């Protein structure tokens, strides 16, 4: 029997996954970005339902990709498994985002 899907990667280019339930820090989640091999991510912060976590390390000032397109720029370094939201991502024309 397949275990419950806890998170989803929408596009193979994405650098974030979406939690389909509240996930706790320290837990491990397996995600499968399209046809790419599955990734095992150890969460380093709690992720509320519907929120995003990083699939890879992002340096400050790098694009965050969801739906295969940039949704913003990291305003701080983001580690793999970390919560990705307004505290560390800015959209275009927001402080810290692209002009």
């Amino acid at each position, binding site marked *: 029997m397949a275990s419950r*899907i806890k998170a*989803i990667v*929408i596009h193979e280019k994405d650098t974030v996954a*979406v939690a*389909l339930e509240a996930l706790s820090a320290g837990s491990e989640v397996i995600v499968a970005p399209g046809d790419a091999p599955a990734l095992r991510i150890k969460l380093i912060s709690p992720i*509320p*339902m*519907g*929120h*995003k976590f990083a699939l890879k390390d992002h340096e400050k000032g790098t694009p*965050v990709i*969801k*739906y295969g*397109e*940039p*949704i*913003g720029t990291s305003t701080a370094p983001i580690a793999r498994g970390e919560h*990705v*939201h*307004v505290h560390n*991502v*800015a*959209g*275009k*024309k*927001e402080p810290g*985002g692209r002009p």
Partner: protein
Amino acid sequence: MTFFQGFRRSDGLAGTRNFVLVIPSVGCSQGAARAIARGRKDVVYLPNILGCGQVGDDQALVKKTLAGFGWNPNVFSVLVVGNGCETLIPESLGEEIARSGKRTEVIVIQKVGGVRKTVALGRKIVGEMLADASKLSREPVPVSELILGTECGGSDYTSGLASNPAVGCASDMLIAEGGTVILSETPELIGAEHLLARRARTPEIARKVLDAVAWWEKKAIEGGQNIRDVNPSPGNMEGGITTLEEKSLGCIHKAGTTTLEEFVPAAARPTSKGLVYMDTPAHDIEQLTCMVAGGAQIVVFTTGRGTPPGSPIAPVIKITGNRDTFLCMRDSMDVDVSGIVRGRQTVRDAGQKVFDQIVAVASGKTTKAERLGQRDFCIFKVNMNI
């Protein structure tokens, strides 16, 4: 070919509803219009507070919106109620609507001799109109004659994952049958405009899409505002949406995958079949009003957080991909596509479910918003009232 059961109009168009519409041409005659419509099923009035003290674009938008509601095929006949000194001349609004071939009457409070006499005369006229409307029956109409408005409000993470892709799938199905689908809300196209522009039939249509986004950005900045201060909203952010681009990328899923055939300004009637972009605000009720003024006989409205609005004359189907919202706001939600998020339903199955619901509602099935009496109306304004 798929058919719905609709009302055929004298101008050849077909409606999903059969209303007698009372339109106050100005806020001053709104009370009389409301009293004329009161207590009568299938008579609706538009709670219009504008029509005076306006210039330029706004004056044109008010007339276009009110006339568009009169033209909408869901309306059988129209009574315009004026006050008499407003900048939007009630007779000229009446003439514009009468070009549809529908019976259109105009009564003016200052000429009739007060509000009470106007209400009495108006109730007599709508009584006659109702009697004629009730003689009409539904008949089979191909779904190719539908103009479907699409909208999202109160978005959360499920909007981009489930409800918008399901609507996109239904949009593709309707367009494959020869129908028309309107995508709109330009401030929520920001960050995804390049993807829509790429799908345009001609470079000119692509340029209009990009210019519309640039106009909204410029207009907001001129007013000392940043669109991002209100968008994403606090509820969007709590629901997992981080930036405007993320919201927009989820939003355009409603448009499915077909070629963009036309660009129309707010409240204008599309002339093409297929996917059409309408340049409207993202404000839920203004956007809804613009699409219905443009001739949409039916609207699909996706929500994550739960959004109740409906239109005075067009059925609005609420679709959510959030199971908790579906259960918590059952009185407002029509279709549950949360199975997509829970891995129990494919987007294609959910799209079919949405398409089937569109056909059923177009044929007379009432929506939750209709049952709740949600007759929301708000005209898009560009400038301040004078």
